[in-house]
């Protein structure tokens, strides 16, 4: 990351209050250009404070959720519901939730829909993006217009709902995948990236007798790992986070994905099916169970997204600029 170079409008670094003997390594600030004023103490402290507060505003609620999910019933009742300072650690809530029953099933459903949906969406989107990446190919302009127009005028909830019903997709998992399988924005991002790959490379492969399938698989995709990673994450997060389609297309409670179960258990505070007994019997506390459900929902994205972080800019920008 070339943080050193550009755009240091004010050219100060927060968190530098007090002398810092370690001036080397990646924690150190790169040298400042000679024309730049030395930062003022107050400015540094102020900015450090604001940045710290912003980061804490993100982390503190998550901390409460995680700590409460890991606390024993006694700690939770002493704290009065939510735990800020951890006293003890127990995995009882997770054991109960993941040893079969409603939440286990919902987690499996969510994972299944996410994996299947992401694979399907990526396959369709990458193929389409590649198919449209060669300007001047037959129908290229028409297909592109057809996709672009949908960014100006959406389908509307009611006609989509009626369509999904008449296609017989209600009460199947296809209703969670097919209507939202294609994101035109994602296709355009992929396409913009594919178009940036040098023509010489693909043309020379073509001369050597490679067809489009082989060029896509052997040349274009390996060169596009960054953007493919970002778009895969976007699709996966979309499927993992979705709840609305399940709420209108599925009627069987046993088919519900994790987000819908979270609405029921955490937002509406209903006791989980099968665990009500354990909670009433006094082994488990309701807040621990609720927070554990939230942790289950946030762990996959919290673990995966930082790995893709360094590519975000690329993925976002090719889309924003050329979309």
């Amino acid at each position: 990351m070339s943080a050193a170079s550009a755009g240091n409008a004010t050219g100060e670094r927060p968190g530098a209050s007090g002398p810092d003997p370690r001036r080397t390594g990646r924690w150190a600030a790169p040298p400042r250009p000679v024309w730049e004023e030395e930062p003022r103490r107050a400015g540094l402290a102020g900015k450090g404070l604001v940045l710290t507060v912003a980061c804490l505003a993100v982390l503190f609620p998550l901390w409460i959720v995680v700590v409460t999910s890991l606390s024993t019933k006694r700690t939770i009742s002493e704290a009065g519901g939510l735990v800020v300072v951890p006293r003890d650690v127990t995995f009882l809530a997770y054991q109960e939730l993941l040893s079969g029953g409603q939440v286990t099933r919902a987690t499996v459903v969510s994972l299944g829909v996410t994996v299947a949906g992401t694979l399907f969406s990526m396959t369709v989107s990458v193929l389409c993006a590649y198919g449209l990446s060669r300007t001047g190919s037959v129908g290229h302009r028409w297909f592109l217009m057809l996709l672009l127009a949908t960014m100006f005028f959406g389908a509307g909830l009611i006609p989509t709902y009626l369509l999904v019903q008449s296609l017989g997709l209600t009460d199947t998992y296809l209703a969670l995948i097919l209507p939202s399988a294609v994101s035109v924005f994602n296709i355009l991002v992929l396409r913009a990236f594919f178009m940036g790959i040098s023509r010489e490379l693909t043309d020379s492969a073509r001369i050597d007798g490679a067809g489009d399938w082989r060029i896509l698989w052997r040349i274009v995709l390996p060169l596009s790992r960054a953007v493919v990673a970002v778009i895969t994450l976007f699709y996966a997060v979309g499927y993992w986070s979705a709840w609305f389609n399940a709420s209108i297309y599925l009627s069987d409670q046993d088919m519900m994905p994790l987000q819908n179960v979270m609405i029921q258990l955490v937002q509406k505070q209903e006791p989980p099916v099968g665990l009500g007994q354990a909670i009433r019997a006094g082994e488990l506390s309701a807040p621990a169970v609720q927070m554990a459900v939230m942790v289950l929902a946030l762990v996959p994205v919290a673990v995966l997204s930082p790995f893709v972080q360094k590519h975000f800019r690329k993925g976002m920008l090719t889309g924003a600029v050329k979309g």
Partner: protein
Amino acid sequence: MAQSTTQIAPAPPDPGVSEADRRTLERAANGGGTFRTRFRRDRTLVLMTLPAVLLVLVFTYVPILGNVVAFQEYDPYVGDNGFVAVFHSPWVGLEQFSRLFEDPAFWDAVRNTLVLFTLQLLLFFPVPILLALLVNSVLRPRVRALSQAILYLPHFFSWVLVVTVFQQIFGGAGIIAQTLRRHGHEGFDLMTDPGVFKFLVTAEGVWKDAGWGVIVFLAALASVSPDLYEAAAMDGAGRWRRMWHVTLPALRPVIALLLVLRVGDALTVGFEQILLQRDAVGPGAAEVLDTYVWWNGVRNQDFSYAAAAGLIKGVVGLGLVLAANKVAHLMGEQGVYKK
């Protein structure tokens, strides 16, 4: 995998041709030749494009046509299935729309939508810009990467998670109410208070997406030449004047673009997010156009009426996008599409 169908017609290019020659050949190939020869040349590409195009046709274009139910008294039971019923339902002209305009609840939804849009524009929109300036001024690579990772994180959380997280902080059993009660004060519940609902929704939006919004601005900041700052400093500009005369002009096109996008999407103020909290505060404060469509269509099965409301939203939205672009062009900015 190894089908080598596509060759550049009419003749496969000789490895020795220059880029310019190849372009000419290709142009000749595109312009010349019948549709059949061009199709034969490109059929793999078309084949690859088709699945996505078909999905868009079925799940976007068919529903767009399905909006005709807004001009009917749609009855899902008159045909073999809901789709066929469109062809058998009676036409009623603009009756659904006049019903709509006479419904005070519809105008409540319009007002709530516009108020929320204004709040989001004033209280949400500037936050990523300020955050980007802040993050950009961090020189230490590790500190910078770490704070970015933390700030981006909530963008990937589902709305269900964001709303429940807010519930744990501001709700009746949340950490603030809990602390207040413990110290002998009265607890409170912001999550069910219609008075603060719109601010709450805006705050949730900021928490979830303000950090993510930073990326675009950071990229714009990274593309400013350091020479500009140096030149400004040589001319005696201090850090605030450098920010005003160098940094902000560099951000202007991005700000204009995002403003155009936001205004064009003004009637979309957070459907899932608001739907999740609609029951807690009641429709008086929480009903927006999207939830109004949902309530009347999905819940009350008054399909034609809800479709009419949805269609109005779509048409007005389209007008807004085009108008916002026009304004951007008049101001000399690029907007979403070029002139």
